[in-house]
């Protein structure tokens, strides 16, 4: 090793080379970083921003960096704001807040996002405002910030706002609570399921689907009843069913739901049967079957509806029995269509078992509508035998179009089409000849050519 003096001489020699970064007293890190923040080359800026994030510790340095914001162009401003956010020093907050008034959308969005790291509960009003009235980028940034803010008081404040703000904002704040997994605010979310605004109710139910706990099942059910029938009610049922699934034992799950149902006014309890159907399971099937086969016709309808929403084919025999025994045509239709639906569910049974059920259903079908339903649902049995079962119906004008559609759906599956290509080609030729639907014909032609996914021009 050379002596230290030699090293220093070498150092002096090296320093005679022209320098890009001055070492004339302004060589501390902060002063190295500052000129690079406005460097025309983004990679040089990135090198400096990395140090803003991780080095030059201390409030004074943070304030010095933040003071550069007004001197930079918008692109550099946005990058520096993001870096200041990542730096996590609240000393940058006043300068970042000022940038919320920038005329540049990217700068405003960066400032909103940075508040997620260095903001305080006092910034919630501005974030809430951006959440509903900003551009898409600002909305996204504000949402990200509300999700990221670490102060525990923030969750309480968001929950409080979720009760009083405008409906649009309430819905968004509830989404934020769910993403934050704010399980301490379930009461506020459950209360929102009874809101007068459908958007708020839906957001609350979605939130419960994400973070709701089974011990609150009873409190969630009024929200299902409050939901408008149709899409909102379906969504509410699905989310409560998700909460039920958090009980891993099937019987315990059923007991928990029955206990929750007991808390609901008997007059409205039957309306929740579809939810029971979505949850499914041995314990609940008996509960629903008793209702579906009882003496009260209006209750039976709820029961049949529930059995038709079962997640597997276990209520199939019960539904067929109801369809067989009833003398009411409407009830027969309702039960039989539900029967065909559950028979076709792609559950743990194999395709042959599923097809056998469909063949049995066809034997039991009495009307054209029932037969069409069977032909339609047979497409869920991915087996060449399903195609052979449907093929004869091509010759019956009444069922021809439905048979064409089902055959094309079956032909979509390469694993049954390719090993039986000659047979499928022949039946697809029939479909091409018989179908009145252009899309069906186009698909049949594609499958004949072995093109499963290439879409033709319409």
């Amino acid at each position, binding site marked *: *090793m*050379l002596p230290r003096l030699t*090293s220093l001489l*070498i*150092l002096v*020699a*090296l*320093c005679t*080379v*022209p*320098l*890009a*970064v001055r*070492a004339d007293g302004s*060589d*501390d*890190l902060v002063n*190295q*970083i500052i000129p*690079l923040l406005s460097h025309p*080359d983004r*990679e*040089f800026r990135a*090198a*400096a921003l*990395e*140090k803003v994030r*991780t*080095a*030059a*510790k201390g409030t004074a340095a943070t304030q010095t960096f933040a003071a550069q914001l007004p001197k930079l162009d918008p692109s550099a401003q946005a990058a520096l704001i993001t870096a200041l956010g990542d730096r996590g020093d609240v000393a940058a907050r006043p300068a970042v807040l000022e940038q919320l008034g920038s005329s540049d959308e990217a700068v405003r969005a960066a400032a909103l996002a940075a508040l997620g790291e260095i903001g305080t509960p006092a910034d919630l009003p501005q974030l809430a405002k951006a959440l509903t009235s900003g551009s898409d980028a600002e909305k996204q940034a504000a949402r990200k910030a509300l999700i990221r803010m670490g102060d525990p008081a923030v969750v309480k404040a968001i929950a409080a706002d979720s009760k009083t703000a405008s409906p649009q904002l309430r819905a968004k704040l509830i989404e934020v609570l769910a993403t934050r997994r704010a399980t301490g605010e379930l009461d506020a979310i459950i209360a929102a399921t009874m809101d007068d605004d459908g958007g708020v109710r839906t957001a609350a139910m979605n939130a419960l689907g994400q973070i709701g706990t089974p011990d609150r099942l009873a409190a969630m059910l009024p929200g299902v009843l409050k939901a408008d029938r149709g899409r909102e009610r379906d969504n509410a049922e699905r989310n409560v069913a998700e909460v039920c699934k958090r009980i891993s034992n099937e019987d315990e799950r059923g007991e928990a739901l029955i206990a929750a149902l007991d808390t609901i006014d008997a007059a409205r309890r039957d309306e929740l049967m579809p939810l029971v159907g979505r949850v499914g399971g041995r314990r609940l099937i008996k509960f629903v079957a008793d209702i579906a086969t009882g003496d009260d016709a209006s209750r039976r309808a709820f029961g049949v509806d529930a059995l038709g929403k079962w997640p597997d084919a276990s209520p199939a025999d019960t539904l067929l029995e109801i369809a067989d025994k009833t003398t009411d045509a409407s009830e027969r239709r309702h039960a039989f269509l539900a029967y065909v639906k559950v028979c076709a569910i792609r559950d743990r049974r194999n395709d042959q078992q599923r097809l056998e059920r469909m063949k049995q259903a066809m034997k039991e079908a009495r009307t054209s509508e029932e037969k069409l339903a069977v032909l339609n649902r047979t497409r869920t049995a991915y087996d060449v035998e399903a195609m052979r079962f449907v093929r004869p119906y091509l010759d019956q004008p009444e069922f021809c179009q439905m048979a064409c559609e089902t055959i094309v759906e079956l032909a979509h599956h390469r694993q049954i089409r390719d090993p039986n290509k000659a047979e499928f080609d022949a039946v697809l030729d029939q479909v091409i000849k018989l179908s009145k639907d252009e899309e069906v014909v186009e698909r049949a032609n594609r499958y004949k050519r072995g093109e499963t996914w290439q879409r033709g021009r319409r």
Partner: protein
Amino acid sequence: MLDQAFEPLKKYDYGTPISELQGIEDAVVAAHDDAALRQDLEQHLIASLESDISRDAKDYVCRKLAQVGSPAAVPTLSKLVSTENAHLARHALERIPGPEAAAVLTTAAVELTGKLKIGAIASVGARGEASGVATLAGLLKDGDPAVARSAAMSLGLIGGVEAAAALQPALQAGSGDKSLVIDALLECAESLLRSGQTAEAKAIYASLAGDQQPRLVRLAATRGLLACGAQAEA
């Protein structure tokens, strides 16, 4: 017992299953915490290297000496640095501790020619010892550009102030491709930064941050300068 383990080596050649030499492999493992066995094993390996065994067998022995060799093996290995076993001999010499092995490689770097010379220069760099800097500095001026490039790379591997000082004149010199010299200088600066010699590292980075340098060099130098600043602050 070792005699028996070495017996298959006499017939070992390309295509012989390595399992034939399992006795030697086991001895290498056992020698890890048995100094006497290690010495005995090394003597057997040296003796094998000096006997009439195949090229592949000698390569194998060199590999084992890289694991258990000491300065005692250097004289025998030095005879191989200009032979067909040169690569594996240098492999062993790069790893054997002590100035003897370093001296053999340094001499080879000066005296050999062609690819063997370039290989020896690379081995001097791989040892990473400052004692090689003076020799490599001389080779930087070699008329063969491949030799000069190899010397620059090795100086970068050695790193430190002396290596940087040796490289600096090559950077200032008139024509030719400077990219390897710059790479080597950057490596020197990084090694200095790692060892806490921030001022020295910073001087090198600063010398490469000027506008006359290509963009990527300036970028690397700028990052280095910022790293120096961050380290000085810590």
